[in-house]
């Protein structure tokens, strides 16, 4: 299986602190994406990093990708209460004409006020 697995499963931090979530996967990929899901809601795309990229930034988000270690990390700086959600990495190892992304189990992030 090439699924991504996030670590930790749950993370609780104080508002204003940084949150780091990690993702590991098993097979070669075309790209890796991070999504956020608020409880019972849809999946919001955060950032996509391609296999030939090592780091990407978007606002308070920083994603790294290490293809040699088959791992990625998502850093959220200066966390806010609104960041409370589950965060998933999703890997794309396209074999057919359309992509199929495989989701990990997610990290549940709680921001304490």
């Amino acid at each position: 299986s090439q699924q991504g697995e996030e670590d930790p499963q749950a993370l609780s931090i104080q508002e204003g602190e940084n949150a780091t979530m990690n993702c590991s996967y098993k097979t070669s990929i075309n790209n890796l994406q991070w999504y956020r899901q608020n409880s019972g809601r849809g999946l919001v795309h955060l950032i996509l990093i391609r296999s030939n990229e090592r780091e990407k930034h978007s606002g308070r988000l920083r994603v790294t990708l290490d293809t040699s270690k088959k791992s990625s990390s998502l850093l959220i700086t200066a966390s806010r209460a609104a960041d409370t959600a589950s965060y998933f990495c999703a890997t794309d190892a396209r074999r057919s004409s359309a992509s199929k992304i495989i989701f990990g189990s997610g990290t549940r992030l709680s921001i304490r006020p």
Partner: protein
Amino acid sequence: EPEVTQTPSHQVTQMGQEVILRCVPISNHLYFYWYRQILGQKVEFLVSFYNNEISEKSEIFDDQFSVERPDGSNFTLKIRSTKLEDSAMYFCASSGPLSSDTQYFGPGTRLTVL
């Protein structure tokens, strides 16, 4: 900003009944997907669709499932005879014009099978 829409937001049905879940992908996208998420579990890939045919399907996507793009805008998932274990959140996604582009997800349809 364009977004994927799904209807209905919640569908309740009796076991054995047919359901059709509807999606309107982002208009210039070429690749379409269905995923599902059983409560408390991972998001699972069901099927991808490109050029009016199924590109790939998972082992979950058995003969009870079918997808269709009946016109230029809608993308549907039909479950012919629902089972209790089909209860889940079903997400539609689209991407394009390249397959490797970001997949954008709809808000989901919560299917409850009684």
